[in-house]
């Protein structure tokens, strides 16, 4: 098999649709019709690893095999891009540092606990970035600070926990944060003090119930993750964030994402550099029969 003389199994349109539906049901990720050849290429390594002759057999594997759940995770792992880096979308992080963190400090003063959630954290750069920002702000000394990162891929979580990164992860990091890293033979490792603030977990965002283990949080970062979901799953995930946030807690989305047509429960907050969302502080006088949910 080679790039131009590809003799590997080909995916038929029906197989694509069946596999796409299965993956969507598992984790809410949605693939458009024009992504068929991408799905075909990326799943081919799974066919090889399992010794399966074609995508029909792979579909049957995901339907009937006792290890199907683990295989779903591997499939999602190869189908989604995991690329991220420290201080990604820094304009939003500046707003978070300068305008949101002081508000959160005031709101959580009585608890003396700050919990941030990086939803879909991939290899962990965002988790550590948030921990560094909190540490650097000096606003939370003596507090119980936790930054929790979750992902559906176990593989990326292994890397996230290790906290060792190559040059491409640092391409947007300002040099003043170098002090939070220690050089090592395999790359630069996050300083133990920062790593101690960070926790990782294997969670599927569309399985709302299990996300309760995160507890109540003060801010959720879910950037460039919702773009992979269909509208129903997107709504479900946003519902989960609303439930997990303390009143007055913040939700940060990626620059191309918004809650338009997804939820009206959040209020929009204009930061000087960005627009973010907040769970309203006020206690409503009325509750609908469906409860206080977006």
């Amino acid at each position, binding site marked *: *098999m*080679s*790039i*131009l*003389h*590809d003799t590997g199994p080909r995916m038929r*349109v*029906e197989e694509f*649709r*069946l596999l796409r539906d299965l993956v969507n049901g598992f984790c809410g990720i949605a693939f458009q019709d024009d992504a068929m*050849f*991408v799905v075909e*290429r*990326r799943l081919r*390594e799974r066919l*090889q*690893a399992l*010794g399966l002759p074609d995508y029909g057999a792979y579909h*049957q594997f995901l*339907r*009937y*095999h*006792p290890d199907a759940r683990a295989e779903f995770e591997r499939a999602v792992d190869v189908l989604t*891009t995991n690329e991220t880096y420290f201080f990604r979308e820094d304009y939003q992080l500046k707003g978070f540092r300068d305008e949101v963190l002081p508000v959160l400090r005031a709101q959580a003063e009585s608890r003396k606990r700050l919990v941030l959630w990086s939803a879909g954290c991939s290899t962990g750069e965002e988790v550590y970035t948030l921990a560094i920002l909190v540490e650097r702000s000096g606003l939370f000394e003596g507090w119980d600070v936790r930054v929790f990162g979750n992902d559906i891929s176990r593989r990326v979580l292994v890397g996230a926990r290790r906290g060792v990164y190559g040059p491409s992860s640092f391409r947007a990091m300002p040099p003043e944060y170098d002090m939070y890293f220690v050089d090592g033979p395999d790359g630069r490792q996050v300083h133990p003090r920062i790593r101690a603030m960070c926790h990782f977990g294997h969670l599927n965002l569309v399985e709302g119930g299990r996300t309760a283990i995160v507890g109540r949080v003060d801010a959720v970062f879910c950037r460039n993750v919702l773009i992979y979901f269909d509208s129903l799953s997107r709504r479900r995930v946003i519902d989960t964030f609303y439930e997990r946030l303390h009143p007055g807690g913040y939700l940060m989305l990626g620059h191309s994402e918004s809650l338009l047509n997804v939820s*009206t*429960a959040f*209020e*929009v907050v204009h930061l000087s550099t960005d627009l973010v969302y907040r769970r*309203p502080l*006020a206690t*409503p*006088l*009325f*509750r*609908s*029969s469906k409860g*206080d949910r977006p």
Partner: protein
Amino acid sequence: MSAADLAKAMASEDAETRRLALRAIAEELPEGSAEHLLRGLGDPDWRVRKEAARATAQVAVALGMLPALVGAIAQGENVGLRNAALEVVETLGEAAEAALVAAIPASIGPSRKFLVEALGGARGASATAVLSEASEDDDPNVAAAALDALARVGGPIAERALRKRLASSDPFQRLAALDGLNRLAAVVPMAELQPLLGDRLVRRVALPSLGRSRAAEAIAPLVDALAEPSASVIDTALLALTRLATDAPPLAALIAERVSVVPMRARAAMRQALGEDRPRDVRIAAARVVALARDLDGLAGIVALIVDDALPPDVLEALSSWGEQAAPMLLALAEHSEGARRAVALELAGDLAPLDGPLAERVRLAMRDALRDPAPSVAAAAARSLARFGTAGDVPALVALAESAPGDVARASGESLSALVSRAADAVDRAVSDTQLAGHGGSALVGVVATLGGPHALERLRAALSSDDVATRRAALEALAQVPTHQAAELAAMALADEDVDVQTTAASALGSMRDEPARSVAVESLRLALASDSPRVQAAAARALGVLGDASAVESLRELVRSRAPGVATAALEALRAIHDPTLDNLLVESLGHLDTEVVKQALLAIHEQGGARAVSRLAVALAHAHWDVRRLAATLLGGLGTAESRAMLAAHRATETDDLVRSTIDAALGVDTNGHRGGERS
């Protein structure tokens, strides 16, 4: 919630309180709901307006709110109220249409414009006539709004009205009409586009239309646009050229001819459009055009797209026509890059280079060097390429990698060694005979042993079957299938008792490929025993293998398995019975059509189709009403295959109610109509 509670909540200063009150309205409808909903639509807080719009859409018709909504749209003071009312009307669709149509004639100025916009949002069937008329309104704002609305409604009448305005004397109307046609993805004849190309204002908007025109005359203006200074114009031109080449494949050669001689400025623009900062669809379009132009300097961008798995098969095909001229540039690229990019550049160079001569030697040396690369993707690419370029001298290095390298590299090395057997059998035999197949690295080498064959092959594979590594045992069984002797069958049969279920299923599959006696008898006997396995996966694999062997003696056992609780087993058993051509399947098939698992139902449909006969059409037609699209699609395909008047009538009747686009297109293909439901040659 009482009317008083509602009034109190709506008077609250807290937006969240007002929002929740509106949410509760739709469920309880207390007195004064319509007035409060209308107030909510004009609320200063966007979340309240959004909630009001959602609630109003549910109850507007019941509460007789349409005239008030029309009034809210026509008024010019509260923009929030108007937008919220527009949202409601869009949700209501045709239900709001009559009220809007009735209000338009008496309205003037901005109100008329707003109502025309709203009519476009309602997208009702009878809106197009009113909007067509409004598109020629004396008020240019109303006319522009009507053109925009026509583009939202769509359909043949809207397209006709928009095309008519392409000849308007007002350049803004021409622009709006063309923009509308682009949004509808309408195919506009070249004769109507040609006059617009001299119009500076409209020319850029004409580019997507040129892309859909399927006309050779569209190529020149699109290629000329590549030299424009604006990146967005270049992006649009690239997307349009791609569309032209895709919709009208014979034009690809003309496009290639033209883009290969573009000025330097256009060439540089095409390469820039491959950059990672550009939208992915533009990058892919640029790759397509660069591939047609055979622009060597665009290879780096193409390689980056291949790394992302983003290059469509047709572009890869265009790339394969470049031949050896691209290989030196790719080798240079490989030398200056690392990881996945280096791997792709190397492998492409190997794909395009000739097998003999100085260039082949350069490729061979580069591959040998890359075998030592620490990145597994690079080493694997090199190993794969050595399947073509390798010589006897490469065998030891490939064997070493097959034995000790990680997954992909080991597998690629093993496959290369198998390919090298035809050119350097002695060298491969010598190197492989010194290896321990029972070890962890045996899985990549057992296939090589089978390809080599010879008197000792079976003995060596037997050793691999004793490996403590599951992957090696499975690979050994797959290799045994290539030497289908009586002894090989006995070894595979023994593996049906392996402690690992994956090994057992591989053994069943291997036995299924032993079609010649005396191996076949051993295979059939052991597979029939495996049908009683505790593991549904082994049962399924054994059933399929018996189907492949076409063994009629297994029919009774297989028929029992069709009723298995495990759908995977039932599916496999039906598949096997189909393969064996069991003549007594009939009742079992009817029963299986009601199975909860779609794969079982699909197997039953296939068997019914194969049996044919008078009852096949009605049985297949029943499945057109199945809840799952894939079952309906298969039923449509099979009915189409029957091609009888009765089956065509069944399909035609079902088409009107089919909701899935893929099933509909299958029906259309079977009936010989295009995807809009028109028979060949029929166009509105």
